């Protein structure tokens, strides 16, 4: 059980690390948000799951945290992206955006 929990937490932290790496490597704000959101969401979920394996009695609160993360994290990212778009920031290498074939 301990090993399963530890591996889940390790997996989660690796995703979090990849998310951070993505923030460095990606070329513009939108791609960075993408890397940030996805990696942190699954990373946090995996860490929470790992904790749930360690301390099975905590599952109700962990489930609640997971639900809140799942609901709020994408909204926050969309809001950031929307703000960036509204300030006129165009995506990297995309002179032909806005629905052009």
């Amino acid at each position, binding site marked *: 059980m301990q090993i399963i929990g530890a591996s889940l937490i390790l997996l989660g932290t690796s*995703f979090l690390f*990849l*998310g951070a*790496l*993505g923030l460095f*490597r*990606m*070329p*513009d704000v*939108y*791609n960075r*948000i*993408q*890397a940030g*959101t*996805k*990696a942190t*969401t*699954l*990373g946090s*979920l995996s860490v929470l799951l790992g904790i749930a394996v360690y301390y099975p*009695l905590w599952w*109700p*609160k962990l*489930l*609640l945290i997971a639900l809140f993360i*799942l*609901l709020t*994290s*994408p*909204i926050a*990212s*969309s809001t950031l*992206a*929307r703000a960036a*778009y509204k300030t006129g920031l165009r*995506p*990297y*290498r*995309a002179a*032909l*955006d*806005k*629905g*052009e*074939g």
Partner: protein
Amino acid sequence: MGRMHQPGLGIFPVWLGKSRIMNTNTSSVNVPQAAYGWQRILLATAFIYPVWLLMVGTFDPAELSIGLIIAVLTAWLSKPHLHILDAIKWHPAIALYVLVYVGVFLWALLRSNLDVAARVLSPRLPINPAIVEVETHLRSDLGKLLLANCITLTPGTLTVDVFADRLQIHWIDSTPGRDMTHATASIAAQFEYYLSKFIK
């Protein structure tokens, strides 16, 4: 229960009631007419109360009753916003649809992470980003919110903005095509299908 069977009490799950025959015209997929405030509050309470239960984590009678009071109070205070709940399509198998949707969603979330990880770790950084538009048939705000959330958490896509029936999406690898038909097919269609089972 009797008063619930008048026609036009849209959001309440009629299949919970005694008579199904009487209510065939108001059942499941129909557009709800003026839903009654207390029904929305009841429904919202049914969503909020489990949150309380998860938070306290006991079945102590004192906690249960305080929680019920707080859940009803919270639902009542959020009354101006509860109309979003009207978007739910009541249906006997709704729990099944929600489960299938959650499964599809978690699977997509997993793929999305592996996808991002692969891109980040690849030395060439294989991205071909663009902002595309996607069409949705979901009409309700709740439906669009869930669809937008889902799109944000799935491989290579990020919802930037929502208009009437369009979603503007940043797509990390727009190779399949930047026009709306291709984008809709490869980004939104799958989730929309599962969502449309229980949301308008």
